[in-house]
C-alpha cells in the first residue's frame, strides 16, 4: 500500500492556544481515516494545514510522497468546514468555476449533481438553497473529477436525518470504490459506521490512532452469571480463549477469542460442572470507550 499522506510533527497555535500540537500521521491508499475529536480539538485546523489554507508553525506534510503544491490539491476532492460558493450564481455555474479551477471537464457537473440528488435544483441560485442542500453541493464539488483521495470535514453537518443517511450512503459507495478518504467528525457513530482507521484528537494532541477495532475496542463482550460466582470466576480462568475477565454487579464480563462464541463458553462451563444462570452478548459501548479516551 502506497502512502497517500504523511504528516510530520505539525504544530500550530493561535496566540496562547495550541490548536494542533506535534501531530504526526500516515495515511495509506484505500484507508478510510476518521479524525475524531470533540469540537475545538484541532480537526479542522489539521485539515486546513494539509490543504494549504492554514500555515503550520512547524512541521511538514507530504501528499503522494512529494512536497505539496497546487497540482496535488487538484487531485484531492475537499470539503472544508462550510460550503463556499458564490450566492448569486446557480449550482451549475458554481460547479463550472470549480471545474475550471480543478481543470476537469464540465461534463462532470451533471454526474456529481445526480450523485447528491440536486439535478432538479441545478439552475437555482446558491443563496436559495437550504443548509442541507448547500452541504450536498459542497460534497458534489468535492466529487468533481472523480478524485481518488477525498478530504471531508464534517460531511453531514447541518443535514436532517434523511440527508445524513443519503450522504453516508454516498460516502460508503466511495469507500466501496476503494477511494482513500480522510474524514473529520465529532460524531462517533459516523466514524464507526464508515471508517477503517481512526485518529483521536483532543486539545490539539493526537491521543491515539490505528485500525478502528484496535482504537475503540470494538470487540463484543460476553457476560455470564452462575449460582457460585467465586467458582465461576476460577473456572473461567481455565477456559481457552477467555480474556479480560471483569466482575461487576453480579455478572462476569469477558471477551472471547476470534471464532469462539457464547455457545462454546456455555459448553465449556457445563463440562466443568457449572450451570450458568445467565449468559448473554453485549454490543461494545463505543461511546463509553471513546469518552474514556478523551477524558
Amino acid at each position: 500500500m502506497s502512502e497517500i499522506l504523511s504528516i510530520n510533527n505539525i504544530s500550530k497555535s493561535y496566540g496562547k492556544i495550541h490548536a494542533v500540537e506535534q501531530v504526526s500521521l500516515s495515511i495509506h491508499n484505500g484507508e478510510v481515516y476518521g479524525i475524531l475529536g470533540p469540537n475545538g480539538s484541532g480537526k479542522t485546523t489539521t485539515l486546513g494545514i494539509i490543504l494549504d489554507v492554514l500555515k503550520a508553525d512547524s512541521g511538514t506534510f507530504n501528499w503522494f510522497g512529494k512536497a505539496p503544491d497546487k497540482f496535488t490539491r487538484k487531485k484531492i476532492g475537499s470539503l472544508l468546514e462550510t460550503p463556499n460558493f458564490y450566492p448569486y450564481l446557480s449550482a451549475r455555474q458554481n460547479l463550472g468555476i470549480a471545474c475550471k479551477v480543478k481543470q476537469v471537464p464540465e461534463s462532470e457537473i451533471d454526474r456529481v449533481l445526480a450523485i447528491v440528488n440536486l439535478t432538479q435544483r441545478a439552475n437555482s441560485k446558491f443563496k436559495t438553497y437550504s443548509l442541507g442542500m448547500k452541504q450536498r453541493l459542497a460534497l458534489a464539488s468535492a466529487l468533481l473529477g472523480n478524485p481518488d483521495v477525498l478530504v471531508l470535514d464534517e460531511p453531514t453537518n447541518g443535514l436532517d436525518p434523511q440527508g445524513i443517511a443519503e450522504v453516508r450512503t454516498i460516502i460508503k459507495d466511495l469507500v466501496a470504490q476503494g477511494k482513500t478518504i480522510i474524514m473529520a467528525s465529532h460524531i462517533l457513530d459516523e466514524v464507526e459506521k464508515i471508517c477503517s482507521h481512526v485518529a483521536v484528537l483532543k486539545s490539539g494532541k493526537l491521543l491515539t490512532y490505528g485500525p478502528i477495532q484496535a482504537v475503540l475496542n470494538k470487540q463484543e463482550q460476553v457476560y455470564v452469571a452462575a449460582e457460585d460466582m467465586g467458582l465461576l470466576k476460577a473456572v473461567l480462568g481455565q477456559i481457552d480463549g477467555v480474556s479480560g475477565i471483569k466482575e461487576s454487579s453480579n455478572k462476569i464480563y469477558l471477551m472471547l477469542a476470534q471464532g469462539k462464541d457464547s455457545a462454546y463458553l456455555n459448553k465449556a462451563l457445563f463440562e466443568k460442572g457449572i450451570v450458568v444462570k445467565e449468559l448473554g452478548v453485549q454490543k461494545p459501548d463505543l461511546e463509553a470507550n471513546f469518552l474514556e479516551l478523551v477524558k
Partner: protein
Amino acid sequence: MNLLNIELKKILPYSTFWVILILVFALIPAVFYGIGQIQIQGAPFDMKQMYRFPGVWNNLTYLASWFNLLIGMLLVILVCNEFSFKTFRQQVIDGQSKSDFVISKIMVMVIISLASTIYLFLIGMLFGLTTTSGNVSMFENIHYLGVYFIQAIGYMSVGFLLATIIRSTALSIIIFMLSILIESIIQIFVPAGIERFFPMEIIANLTPNPIYQSMMVQAQQMQNMQMNGQVTPPQMDMLSLGTTIMVASIYIMLFWGVTYFILTKKDIR
C-alpha cells in the same frame, strides 16, 4: 487564459458589477455634457469649447478620473466578495495558488480599465466630431487616454491592496474613500517636496486638471513675454507627466507585490 475564463464566469453574471459599470458609463457623458451647457454670465469663452478636439481628451479624462474612484470601489467589492464568500479559500483548496489569485485580479483590472478607456475614446470621438470645426488635429492629446488607463489600474490596485488587508467590504470601501483625505493629512507633516510623491496624489495627477494645465501654459507665456519680471506669474509646481507615469507605475507594481506578500503570510480563513 484559464484564469481569465474563471474570472469572467464569476463577474459576468454578477449584477452589482453591471450596475456600477453602467452607472459610471452613463454618468460620464451625462456630466460631461452638462458641464458644457453651463452658461457663465459675461465669460469671454463658451463652455462648449471643452467638447472640441484636441482639448476634449484632457477634459474628458479629467472628468472621468473622478469616476475612477467608483471603478476602484468596484474592484474592492469584487475582491472582498472572494473573502466574505470564502471562495478564495475554496479555490486554493481546489488547486489555485495565491499568485494565481493576484494574476487573476490583475487581469480583471486590465479588462475593466481597457473597457472604460475604449468607452472614453468613443465618447470623446462623439463629442469631438459633433462640435469641432476647422482644421485641428483630432488625436493631438490622445495620450490622455493612456494615462487614464494607468490611473484606473492605479485606483483599482489601491483597492485590491486595501481589500486584501481589511477583507470586510464596507470597511474597505470607507477606508478607500478616506485614503485621499488620510493622505493629505499625512502630507502636512512631511518635508516639502516629498508630498508630491504620495500614491493617491500621484495617481490622481495622472489626469491633470485641464484648468491648471491652461494656467500653466498661460504662466509660461507670461514669463516669456514679461522677461523683465514686472508681473509675477503664478507658481505652478507640478511634476511632469512622464515622471508621474513612472512613479505611478512603480506604485502599482509595489501594491501588487505587497498584496501578494500579505496573501502568502496570512492564513486563509
